[in-house]
């Protein structure tokens, strides 16, 4: 009997059929992440259950991960497509400054938003062109533009933080709609768009082909160069969105504070979520779970008031433990 028939028939007769189907739908890796997340929730829940499970705290977690969430998703797309965007934190710094300056100059929040998104897109375009047509390795290229974008942000702002006094704009950072913070809405909407894009759209599927096997992509008539540039523009626009949210949250634009190191966190979340740096592998759901794990960790450690130096220890260990548990779970399934 052929093995595949065997496998097919097995699914139907398998007593654990429903479970198996769930696993297939979510993917083993995501299930493992859920398990890891559950363990963290149990730990912090049992230590500070009173506060931890309060709706207010859960929203805090959501607010805390919005910006990282957006970047982890866009980074996932970049990594799936076989690239890497290390300049993303610097792009956030640049766009947050330009958003603040645009609002300061015009008083119009809309102008700020446009400025942020357009500058982000331009920054992405620059990355895309250097990588695709300059044939520079993505790591080197975006490390280079990271310095360049940061430099530009400093020069634009002269190193000062730029205050935003528009209440309308600040509403993005603190407002609520139907009881949920606007930031959380934005995260949810972005997530749906990103998920549909990567998992369901033709372009998204082609990105998997591009990252998974560029030879196939080339022979299938996918315009590899245009895709690459497009992916980096997307990453830049997402960084622009993140920059706008950062400006709205802090009420100011600052070249470094709040954006430095975001690239590493975004890459961590994406890899935690199942991305392989070789490309061709990764999902939006995974990235979000990765972000959630990081968010719960940060929140739980503040709640349980772990001393600073031990927080580092705990954070590192829990990160690794989460993955080891996930791996263990994965090998058993």
């Amino acid at each position, binding site marked *: 009997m052929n093995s595949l028939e065997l496998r097919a028939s097995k699914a139907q007769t398998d007593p654990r059929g429903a479970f198996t189907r769930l696993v297939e739908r979510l993917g083993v890796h995501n299930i493992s992440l859920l398990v890891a997340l559950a363990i963290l929730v149990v730990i912090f829940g049992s230590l500070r259950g009173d506060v931890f499970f309060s709706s207010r705290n859960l929203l805090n977690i959501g607010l805390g991960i919005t910006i990282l969430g957006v970047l982890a998703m866009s980074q996932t797309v970049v990594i799936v497509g076989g690239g890497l965007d290390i300049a993303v934190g610097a792009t956030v710094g640049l766009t947050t400054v330009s958003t603040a300056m645009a609002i300061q100059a015009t008083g119009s929040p809309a102008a700020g938003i446009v400025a942020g998104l357009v500058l982000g897109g331009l920054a992405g375009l620059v990355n895309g062109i250097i990588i695709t047509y300059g044939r520079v390795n993505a790591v080197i290229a975006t490390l280079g533009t990271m310095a360049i974008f940061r430099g530009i942000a400093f020069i634009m702002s002269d*190193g*000062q933080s730029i*205050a935003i006094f528009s209440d309308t704009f600040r509403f993005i950072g603190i407002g609520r709609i139907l009881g949920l913070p606007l930031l959380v809405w934005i995260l949810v909407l972005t997530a749906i768009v990103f998920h549909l894009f990567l998992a369901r759209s033709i372009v998204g599927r082609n990105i998997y082909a591009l990252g998974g096997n560029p030879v196939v992509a080339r022979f299938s008539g996918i315009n590899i160069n245009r895709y690459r540039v497009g992916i980096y523009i997307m990453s830049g626009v997402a960084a622009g969105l993140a920059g706008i949210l950062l400006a709205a949250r*802090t009420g100011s634009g600052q070249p470094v504070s709040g954006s430095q190191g975001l690239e590493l966190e975004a890459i961590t979340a994406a890899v935690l979520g199942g991305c392989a740096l070789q490309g061709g592998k990764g999902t939006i759901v995974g990235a979000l779970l990765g972000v959630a794990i990081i968010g719960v960790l*940060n929140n739980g450690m*503040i709640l349980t008031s772990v001393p*600073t*130096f031990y927080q580092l220890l705990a954070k590192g260990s829990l990160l690794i433990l989460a993955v080891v548990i996930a791996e263990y779970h994965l090998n058993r399934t």
Partner: protein
Amino acid sequence: DDIKIGYINKMGEHPWFVAEVGGAKKAAEAAGATFVSQDVQFDSNLTITTFDTMVGDGVKGIAIVVPDKALGPVIAEKAKAAKIPLVAVDDDIYYQDGTQVPYVGMNAYNIGARVGDELAKLYKAGGWASKEVRIASIEDRKADTCMQRNKGAGEAFLKAVPDFKPANILRVPYDNTMVNAIDVMTTTLTANPGVTNWIFYSCNDDGVLGAARALENAGYAPDQGMGIGIDGSRACEAFGSGKPSAFRGTMWLNSANHGALAVKILLASIKDGTKLPVQSFTDPEYITADNFASDYKAKLCH
């Protein structure tokens, strides 16, 4: 002939140092000297490399904000070997035998103590005695000068308000950025739902303004919080809107003066052999919503 002065600072992108280096440069150019500066981004190894490179480049004197006070003896020794005068700015450093390298800056503990005193005044005037009050000490344990400032603030407050329980001071770690201050303070608020009123201080304006934003975002009224910052780098943001806020004031230090003074005494020493003063302190100016618009707005906002 042409005198070249070197200026090494630890964090070139911070508004504080932007102003400080600016002040130094202006002073050097006014005196007809050439000025070179380098930002070492908290990197002790790069600090040494930069020092060597500047000496190799022929500078006649160096002012330095060290990223790490333990570098003191090595830097001091190198300056001695190169036979050039050395001034430490902002962070004090010492020779191996314990003598201090000539210093220009502030007294971190004393500035913190002034924050504590002012907070105590606000506390007593605010009629909070009957309320559930906690203090959040927002601190970066990795930064020595930061811990000095918070220590000063805490001790001065407790001295002025003896019946305040030390246990009601919560230590809230942050990473020196405003966004992080918002996040950690937000969580701290949630973790202490019974507390109605908050006092907070931090190493700098970033920590205090972040905490004020967290209160605001969580729906606290401006008069349910009081915080006083240090360095004035966020004063324009905090007071510029003219609205009441839990950010009640900041101890502004004009870092441009530090830079300028350091260069002046270096040049005096190089040109005329004037002995470098061991310590030159500058005093903070206390900015509040009341005096901001009249006295500081023009200076601090662009």
